[in-house]
């Protein structure tokens, strides 16, 4: 791991941890909201990174798995006559399971194709799930629906606040640790090796497709967990995360931060969320949208710094 990357990641993390007491002291609940959003997006992006970055597969439908996570919360909350269904002990495993299975299935079908066709078919599956969510009139359909009951571990609720913020940071840390271990495990090596040379990986006896389906499942499950957090964060159930624009945004975060690097998704999510905040404020006097700066910035990153933020901080050592 490159020291610069490590340093920046550590600084970001310290900042996010420090934000909690700071927000309370300074009376800035918005700061907490902002960082919590950042953390949730970083979790989802980290999930996507396994497929997009490490396995090198251009998947553009991962918003759907985040959506599955949030619909798990929304549907259970709506149907919860008592508190049992709103239990986070139930919702997290269920969301991860359903999103993971959906991802495995979609991955297994999509992996029959490659390149741009793969990109499109993953996107198409995402859109199907999106319209499926829109059809759920009982759960708000297109309009979405307020989630009246937050997930809770016993008395510990995930409704917006100090506790849920700290919990989100903990999940982010766990997910990054998981990614650290997985990408350095034999499984992770196979994914990365197959991205570098798929034919050869087959020729040394590795059934690459099954590994990729496995990567899809794991990455979908992580996105599902992010979806549970997102639903609690917004307290609003909406088909929006399933839409293709959300999937593209997640991919943008991964690529902006540095695809196939451990902290890339965190950097990407941070750049996305913080730049939106700063640029929106800075451009307000001219009534300009932050996209007018962010768009060319993305182009610049592609043309001048294809390795993203992590790449800018120095060539990552292998391993």
């Amino acid at each position, binding site marked *: 791991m490159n020291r610069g990357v490590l340093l920046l990641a550590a600084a970001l993390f310290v900042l996010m941890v420090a934000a909690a007491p700071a927000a309370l002291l300074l009376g800035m609940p918005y700061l907490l909201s902002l960082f919590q959003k950042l953390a949730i997006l970083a979790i989802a992006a980290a999930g996507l990174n396994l497929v997009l970055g490490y396995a090198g597969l251009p998947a553009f439908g991962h918003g759907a798995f985040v959506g599955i996570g949030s619909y798990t919360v929304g549907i259970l909350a709506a149907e919860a006559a008592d508190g049992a269904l709103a239990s986070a002990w139930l919702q997290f495993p269920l969301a991860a399971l359903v999103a993971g299975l959906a991802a495995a299935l979609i991955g297994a079908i999509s992996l029959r194709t490659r390149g741009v066709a793969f990109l499109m078919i993953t996107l198409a599956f995402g859109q199907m799930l999106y319209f499926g969510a829109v059809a759920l009139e009982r759960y708000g359909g297109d309009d979405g629906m307020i989630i009246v009951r937050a997930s809770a571990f016993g008395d510990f609720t995930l409704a917006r606040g100090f506790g849920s913020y700290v919990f989100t940071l903990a999940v982010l840390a766990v997910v990054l640790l998981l990614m650290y271990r997985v990408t350095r495990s*034999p499984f*992770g090596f196979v994914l*990365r090796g197959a991205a570098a040379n798929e034919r050869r990986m087959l020729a040394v006896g590795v*059934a690459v497709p099954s590994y990729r389906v496995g990567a899809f499942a794991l990455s979908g499950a992580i996105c599902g967990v992010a979806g549970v957090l997102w639903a609690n964060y917004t307290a609003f159930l909406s088909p929006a995360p399933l839409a293709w624009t959300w999937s593209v945004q997640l991919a943008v975060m991964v690529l902006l931060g540095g695809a196939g690097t451990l902290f890339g998704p965190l950097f990407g999510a941070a750049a996305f969320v913080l730049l939106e905040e700063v640029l929106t404020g800075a451009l307000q006097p001219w009534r300009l949208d932050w996209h007018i700066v962010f768009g060319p910035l993305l182009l610049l990153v592609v043309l001048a710094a294809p390795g993203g933020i992590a790449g800018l901080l120095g060539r990552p050592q292998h391993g």
Partner: protein
Amino acid sequence: MDKAAALAEPLLTARGLKKSFGGVVANASIDFDLRPREVHAVIGPNGGGKTTLLGQLMGEILPDAGSVRLGGIDVTAMSVPERVMRGLARSYQVTSVFPGFTVLENVAFGLRARRRISSRLWRSASTGGELGEAAAAILRRVGLSGRSGVDAAVLSHGEHRQLEIAIALSTSPKVLLLDEPLAGLGVDEGRRMVELIADIRGPVAIVLVEHDMEAVFALADRVTVLVDGAAIASGAPDSIRDDRLVKAAYLGEDA
């Protein structure tokens, strides 16, 4: 070649392999076999169908017709990894390694696959212990000991060819398909490669596709000549050397 080997059941058999690409026939109907301990060279002009044959034996190219048996079992419908697990391995004409990974790691992929530990999720992919020793042994054998920690992308061409062989050996094959292992090598490097192949042969039966006739005649127990997708001759090196058809079609001499 001793008589016992000649009588043994072939390790690898192909019957009636046919393949055409968009109307161009690559393999017409090829019968091919490889006996234990044997080096069976396949020669012929470019476009003769040698690489297509290797691809079909390996399972990378699905034949239009015909069958492949490996160790007495029909593997025609098996995927590449399944065949590898039954003892088949190959090298590529154009270097095909894992760039971005160290030389040691390049070899470790096959070792792990063979030990069926590739799918471990949580354990670190360490190259220590028994696995590391096995990898080091292979690298020593191909002459890359000193380069184990280097990114495979920065190796020289000669080293790439050595690594090609090392990766193929990492799956502990019983049958090795070598696709022009000498391609692009200088005289000295070429000689070392011939020595390496001579060292490997024996416990490992080898199908050798090669243009370098010196190497072929130095290594091969048997030679098959592919021209326009068909085997026009097959036999001991000496008989092939003298075969008029072969001379005409391949060596370019008038019959």
